[in-house]
């Protein structure tokens, strides 16, 4: 299993930032722009970790997380939710959906990298 990280994020700049950050940190990344694509990609590539945006065009990140976690072969993959700002109450929902951790948007690339390294040392 490679140390590939699946990034499910619809916003281009965010994808680019994550890509630039993680590539420079030596991770391989798989990018998808929607929840549906993300779930498919997870099944197909079985990444080491998933960065899950919550606001996505087709269905939201919670639903995508539930689907992935519902799959026994995928349920071990840690999922870090990238939630909106604290007051939205997204974190609770994220944990309820099965996420293992969360970073709030706007994320600091440094903080994000720190969080990823907790799961992928």
């Amino acid at each position, binding site marked *: 299993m490679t140390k590939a990280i699946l990034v499910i994020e619809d*916003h281009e*700049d*965010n994808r680019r*930032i994550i890509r*630039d*950050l993680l590539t*420079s940190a030596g991770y391989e990344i798989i990018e998808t722009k929607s929840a549906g694509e993300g779930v498919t990609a997870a099944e197909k590539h079985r990444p080491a970790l998933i960065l899950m945006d919550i606001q996505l065009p087709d269905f939201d990140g919670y639903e995508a997380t539930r689907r992935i976690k519902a799959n026994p072969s995928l349920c071990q993959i840690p999922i870090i939710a990238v939630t*909106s*700002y*604290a*007051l939205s*109450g997204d*974190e*609770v929902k994220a944990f309820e959906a099965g996420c293992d951790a969360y970073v709030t*948007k*706007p*994320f*600091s*690339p*440094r903080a994000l990298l720190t969080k990823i390294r907790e799961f992928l040392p």
Partner: protein
Amino acid sequence: MQNAPSSKIAPEVNSISRRFSYTLIGVITILLIVFAATVIFFDINRIESEINRRLDNAIEFAQNSLPTPLWNLDYVVVNDFVDALFLDESIVYTKISWEDKVITEKVRPGFQVQKLETILPSTLFKGSIYISKSSDIQFKENKVSTILIVMSRESLRKKALLQIYGIIALSIIIIGAIWFTSIFITKRYISSPLLKLQESASSIAHGDLDTIVDKSSNDEIGLLAKHLDIMRGSIKGLFSKLKESKEKLEEYSRTLEHKVEARTRELARSVEELEALGEISQTVNTTLDLETVLTSIVRHAVQLSKADAGTIYEFDETEQVFVPRTNYGLSDEFIQAMRESKQRVGDKTVLGQSAEKRLPEQIPDLVNAPDYPISYMKQTDFRALLAVPLLRKDRHIGGLVVRRKVAGEFTDSIVNLLQTFAAQSVIAIHNARLFHEIEDKGREIEIANKHKSEFLANMSHELRTPLNAILGYTELIIDNIYGDVPEKIQEVLERVEKNGRHLLNLINDVLDLSKIEAGRLTLSLNEYSMDDIIQTVFTSVEALAAEKNLDLNVKIRGVLNTGKGDEQRIAQVILNLLGNAIKFTEQGKIEVEATISNESFLVSITDTGPGLSEPDQKRIFEEFRQADGSSTRVKGGTGLGLSISKKIVEMHGGRIWVDSNLGKGSTFSFTLPIRVEMQMELK
């Protein structure tokens, strides 16, 4: 007054005649007794002297007659002489003696000689009934014998007594006669007339003013009777005057009663009107439902004006017609007909005319107005109509019309009353219009406010996305992800990042606040540990405090029970307060204290910072407030943190406040009910 107690007086009266006769008889009796006593006294004296005279005569007679016979001793003659003496019945004993030798002696039978010795000088009724006298009989200077004669007063006394009895008897007869006469006279001339007079007076006193007073006698009583009659006449006159006055008074009081009754009715009516007005104005002031108010007004208007039906019309300004708004006492057909006929200002109807003239208008009898333009009115039995215009600042609002089945003018008081009702109707309609306007405005404002909040929420979200990218790239550049960056550029980029973060915080706070204000923030109430929250927050700011060399410590007093509330929000509040304390304190220490008091957590954050002036303490929790406007720029922060904290605490049912002395630091405290089961509604 008429039943004077004269009848009671009568039996107590002492008859004048009796009193008069008693007095008279007393006086006369005394006089008679005195007279009789005097007569008897003189009579006794006379009798006494008579006896003495007769005794002296007898002695003298003896002295003259006896010397010779005695000298001659001719005792026959002496005896004859003694017999002759005894012809006087009073002489009871005669003795002629010489020395101790009795010459002759004669005793009347019944007289005892032995008693002679006891005969003492006496008077007729005192002492002995006997009187004696002795004398010497001389013949030529020679004593020849002694004669003793005893006389009895008996017969004389009898005679005297007889005289006294006679006098007494006469006195009694005289007294009786006088008594009888006096009684008769007083009765006849004084008592009876007086009694009659008294009866007349009593009758008069009893109110019989036509009593005939007997004034036939021409004496004082007759005079009295005349005066009594005059008095009766006067009283009669007075009585008739009194009666007249009384009748007048009664008449007057009857009139007064009528007046009072009329006035009472008027007052009752006024009270009724006032009550109706009171009820209406209360309705106007308490009910914004125009229908209720107008129904009340039209009902009272009809009832108080003694009419049978009424309508309040509202003036439709766009159509320029009167629309019937509220009716009372009208059939559905009538109302339907009324709706179809469109009345305008200036129409020849009472409503149109009153609107044009801006004055009340009435038709006392429709029979006299055959040209009345409302055709359906002819199918009804309404006879009299009255319309009062509803005006506000000279603009037509509508009209109040009452209809009556009895012909006749509506009085001024009714017209005035209906004008008052019309004024109330105007107020009610105006109030209702204003209320609707306000309601509409309120709704608009509410919608606008919601739009604002939603706009802000969306706006801040939209602002954040590009900012996110800016901050992300900046950080990557600073971290040399894209290659080495010269130190000068690095420094500038750090400033870019710092400002970007400030902007981000601002946007986040605005987002929070607008969410709270839009009512879109829902607390997620779960169990939490206050110790853990404080520890987490402490950990996250420890580095910041260390950077400024501030002494940061936490004091937990007692055991903090497990709480229930929104953990994240509570953490946000503590973070905000602690963040502020670190931000504004340059040196000294910051202390977080937590305890339980009155079923609530009490958390205080005390710093040794600049402190707050009193006005600032009051304003500090308002939006976009900091102690000093300039400090926002120097210290960073949005000025929304405390405002958001206050709202979060209040949503939990807690309270937040600050104690501070300028220059000596501040203590921000908040309470939080330990277990919050329900989110509080914010004011």
